[in-house]
């Protein structure tokens, strides 16, 4: 991996991030377009939740992450504090892995 490749990847990753804030930036946007933009992150983050849980490298798998997400969902539903949700999920996955 050359320095050129690292700098190139860094520049590309930055350009992707900065596209919205710098290109669309401070332009006054119509209200309905603002609603659309704000909404984009929701399906992407929702997808991240499921893909990070069930992705086994080009196939779907059910492993210790699945019961951990179930525990997290239960804790979110019961309005548990953020840290309790996160640590509850980690403890569940660790426990399942320890006993299987």
């Amino acid at each position, binding site marked *: 991996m050359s320095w050129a490749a690292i700098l190139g*990847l860094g520049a590309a990753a930055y350009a*992707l991030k*900065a596209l919205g804030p710098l290109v669309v930036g401070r332009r006054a946007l119509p209200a309905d377009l603002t609603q659309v933009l704000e909404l984009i992150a*929701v399906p992407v983050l929702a997808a991240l939740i499921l893909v990070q849980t069930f992705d086994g490298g080009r196939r779907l798998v059910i492993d210790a992450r699945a019961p951990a997400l179930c525990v997290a969902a239960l804790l979110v539903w019961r309005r548990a504090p953020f840290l309790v949700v996160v640590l509850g999920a980690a403890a569940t996955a660790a426990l399942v892995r320890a006993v299987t």
Partner: protein
Amino acid sequence: MNSGAVRGNALAIGLATGAYGVSYGVLGVAAGLSVAKTCAMSLLVFTGASQFAVVGVVGAGGSVAAALAPALLLAARNALYGLSLVPVLRGRFASRAAQSQLIIDESTAMARAQAEPVASHRAFLLTGLSVFLFWNLGTLAGALLGGSIGDPRRLGLDAMFPAAFLALLAPQTTGPAARIAAICGALLALALVPFVPVGVPILAAGVGVVPGVRAMRRAAKAPA
């Protein structure tokens, strides 16, 4: 979420990503990158999934060109986050340019979890800076210490991230538009996992805004 809770959560998310940074640092050096290059990736690329993809491919003997494609596909979702953060990231050009480097999953999710734009901006900055600090410190520690560190999965750290995103997203996903967008995007991404290259499913989930916006328009048209 009150401001003290935001600070605490930003710190917790930073520490969790820091643990993954250690793991990335170990893998980077194991893949043959120097300590300086491993650390430069965390500073300059600063997108965990892309960095893991690069060291994964290079470590397995793949070419740099083969490593860049998945890395860019994984980084492309940050463009969607950047677009969604346009209403939140205000200020001068230089300030927006600097803050753009902090656009990642965690900072976007924390921004989304706040109801007010000012609180969103603060949550974005605190989370972005916390993750940036601990990710880079973790990388340095992992690159220097090498393989003597255990697998973070044994502690269930990998299960923390989806749980955190769920905890942040769920309370704000109340209206029909957000719910429909979230469900459509998530199911589409899951269905695509076996069939398309890594990174594409998450990107494709952005299409979920289409049924979401249609639901929004229908609700706006419906007689009160």
